[in-house]
């Protein structure tokens, strides 16, 4: 079988083949660690009946939507009370409510966010304003400690 201009065609095909399978070469031989977010914090361990604001499966897929709604309600409407479908009441606050239990951002939030390939510095952009309470260090910077009434 004669291929005319075979030099160009074969080089082109080779480049295409490598580009099309690029992730295989990039990830070749790497051990992919599962995301494995940790739920072991003192507050959660102490809970008799472990529950989050919504059922677990829903929290996994919907937490970003929920937080976005909370932000809108708090910042724009000044509402701070959230009533979950099961009747429990929560304060709409990432720092005081979410982090009360999930005080381990590095082992909880970051694990999945990194695994999903979000850019740590900018995405999710929650933490360009918020800080993790447990990571507040005295004297680390005045910016970090903003009075809550200021919102």
């Amino acid at each position, binding site marked *: 079988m004669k291929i*005319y201009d075979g030099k160009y065609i074969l080089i082109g095909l080779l480049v*295409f083949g490598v580009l099309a399978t690029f992730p295989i070469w990039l*990830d070749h031989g790497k051990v992919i660690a599962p*995301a494995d977010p940790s739920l072991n914090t003192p507050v959660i361990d102490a809970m008799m009946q472990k529950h989050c604001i919504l059922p677990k*499966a829903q929290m996994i897929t919907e937490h*970003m939507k929920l937080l976005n709604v909370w932000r809108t309600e708090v910042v724009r409407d000044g509402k701070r009370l959230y009533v979950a479908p099961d009747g429990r009441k929560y304060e709409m606050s990432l720092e005081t409510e979410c982090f009360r239990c999930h005080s381990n951002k590095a082992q909880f939030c970051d694990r999945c966010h990194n695994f*999903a*390939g979000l850019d740590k510095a900018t*995405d999710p*952009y929650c933490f360009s304003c918020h800080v993790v309470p447990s990571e507040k260090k005295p004297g680390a910077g005045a910016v970090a400690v903003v009075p809550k009434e200021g919102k």
Partner: protein
Amino acid sequence: MGIKFSLAAVVGLILAAYIGVTGAGFYHFFGVTMPYLAIILFLGGVAYRVLNWGRSPVPFRIPTTAGQQKSLPWVKHAKYDNPSTKGQTFVRMALEVLLFRSLFRNTKFEAEEGHRLYYQQEKWLWLAALTFHYCFLVILLRHLRFFTLPVPSFVQGLDRLDGFFQVGLPGIYITDGLFVLAVTYLIIRRLVIPQVRYISLPQDYFPLFLLLAIATTGILTRYIYKVDLIKVKTLAMGLISFHPVVPAGIGTIFFIHFFLVCTLFAYFPFSKLMHAGGIFLSPTRNLPNDNRIRRHVNPWNYPVKVHTYAQYEDHFREKMVEAGLPVDKELEEAPSAPAE
């Protein structure tokens, strides 16, 4: 008929994935078998088609000459519309592949009220086509975040740029909207312009409906019927590391999206979508117009014994001079070096 058939085919594919996953529970088939099958068909099919094209000899230059060819020095040469060197042809190809230059020249021919016929520029097709292709590229590259760990910074950068407006969470992507708009335009164009509709076949509608269905299911997966992204990425990483696992509990909408994408990849080499490879092998685009500059020898010519005019004249010069016929070289100068 073409529309109904294509629409039915796409709906059939969606139903097949829906019933296959929720009813029959063929998770392994839709999560592992299909993607492997699709990628083998895709890569193998593309290679087959391209090599098959490569078997056709192109003995003579046949570029479309969309401008003045290289001529006398005072005649302005349209370098990229009628290239005469490889370099100019490369620029022409780049303009064609990256900017769809020939589509930009699209005109339409219409009869005005009365009997006047006129040509008019028609850029909408070019705009929609360019938007569609570039959005598709960005979407494809964005999806690399499911197939790489750690994710390359250019993918994250692209993601950030695409989600620039930060509307909602997860953020709306600009390309998602533009992609749907562009594909919708391409479908409507086919349906509304009578001439285009007349020449449209099922294989013209099917890819459009398929792409629209892929975009729609993708958007639904991201914003409405959300699925567990970590499980999806586990599935994707398993596939490319050849240790496939299908984590339990991924939403059906993901499998529909995934199945449609697999169908697109498997269908690609055997359809008009192969224009992606075909554009590079188009003799009317990728050849320099140097028919009169270089000698092109037909590759399957058998050796022909030739007798050039110079040889002919050498042979018969004396007789020609005797008969009073004009000769290039006179008798006395003939034995010396060839004349200018």
